């Protein structure tokens, strides 16, 4: 069975065969949730993540365009951010659900999930 076709909810170690230049690396699947949204939401999102038990996240600055127009980061009101969270699929979905319920209707926001492989599964 191909390791890339597993059910992503079913988290288990994936041992990738070693190559001449490396010893085997044992990775596990996790989900990466990425959010592009208005910079003004940063403190709210941090509070949400703390409340929902999300233990790690990364922010960076961004600018862009979407259905709510151009947001070109020249001043406070037009800044975007990118938020990335690596966690278990279920937690990513729960947070995505929360984003949809609380923010999608009224804020410039785009969120998406993708699959990644991590080394230290207990961290995420």
């Amino acid at each position, binding site marked *: 069975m191909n390791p890339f076709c597993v059910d992503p909810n079913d988290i288990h170690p994936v041992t990738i065969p070693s190559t001449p230049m490396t010893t085997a690396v044992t990775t596990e699947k996790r989900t990466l949730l990425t959010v592009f949204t*208005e910079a*003004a*939401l940063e403190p*709210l999102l941090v509070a949400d993540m703390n409340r929902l038990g999300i233990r790690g996240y990364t922010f960076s600055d961004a600018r862009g365009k979407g259905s709510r*127009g151009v947001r*070109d*980061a*020249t*001043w*406070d*009101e037009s*800044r975007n951010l990118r938020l990335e969270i690596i966690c278990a699929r279920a937690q990513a979905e729960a947070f995505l659900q929360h984003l949809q319920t609380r*923010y999608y*209707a*009224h*804020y410039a926001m785009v969120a998406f999930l993708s699959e990644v492989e991590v080394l230290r599964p207990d961290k995420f």
Partner: protein
Amino acid sequence: MSSLDPVILFFLLGLVAGLLRSELKLPGALYDSLSIFLLLAIGLKGGQGLATQPLAPLLPQVAAAVALGVVQTLLAFGALRWLFGFDRPDAAATAAHYGSVSVATYAVATAWLAARAIDVEPQMAVLLAVMEVPAILVGIMLARGIDRRTDWAALSHEAFLGKGVTLLLGGMAIGWAAGPDGLQPISPLFVDLFKGVLALFLLEMGLIVSRQVGELRRRGLALVVFGVAMPLLSAPLGAATGVALGLSVGGTTVLATLAASASYIAVPAAMRIAVPQANPALSLAGALGVTFPFNLLVGIPLYHRLAVALVGS
């Protein structure tokens, strides 16, 4: 007196460069740094003035400024909701912008008066800081009604500990504690460079205002009419309050200008969080795209003439 102040010319340069789609862009960190500088410098100046006078007479003035902010917000809400047909959240959020004040407009007004050697009471900086806040709270109540779920702790935090109020009040406290002599060694930065920094800031404001034009075009005449009519209504209210408080011509002009001005720092940030249904592009197009340039180019001299008429020069 006839020629334009160079800070206004910087604003026009930014506006024209933006409209011609010049590649001119100021780094975001520069915009932030300039606005931190202006807020601190205004606070220091006000605080230093307060250090030389008793604080007790301030209380009625602060109360009047709060009342002025509340009344303006209610008036703007009524007009937007029933005359201009805005929906409730948009009317409330936009009204909060107009009930609050613009730091850049205040700075231009005081510079305009200083260039004409017209004195201004030092406590106007206190009123500037005070008037930032009440419109935010009124706007939120107008948008949501007063319900149990409102997180007033979070809102007050947002209103009182936002960047603007922190720096204005903090600067004022430092100015007051250090006094004019204590501030001497830092005045080459905070006093001598003030007007040059204001000029750079207005260059960026011109660029930002130029980007409101698209929204203005989409919204037709309504925003333009409201954006001009509202300061013409608020300024007399502010001037009358100034007269009632016994302010000088300079102080009355500044209070009229504060009333006429609309916020684009504290209020947009607070409304975005507290009234998410409101469209921020709408409020900003009015406050920045119409009212800000109107006050800079036409309003301030007008409000000064009004103050002269009411107070005598």
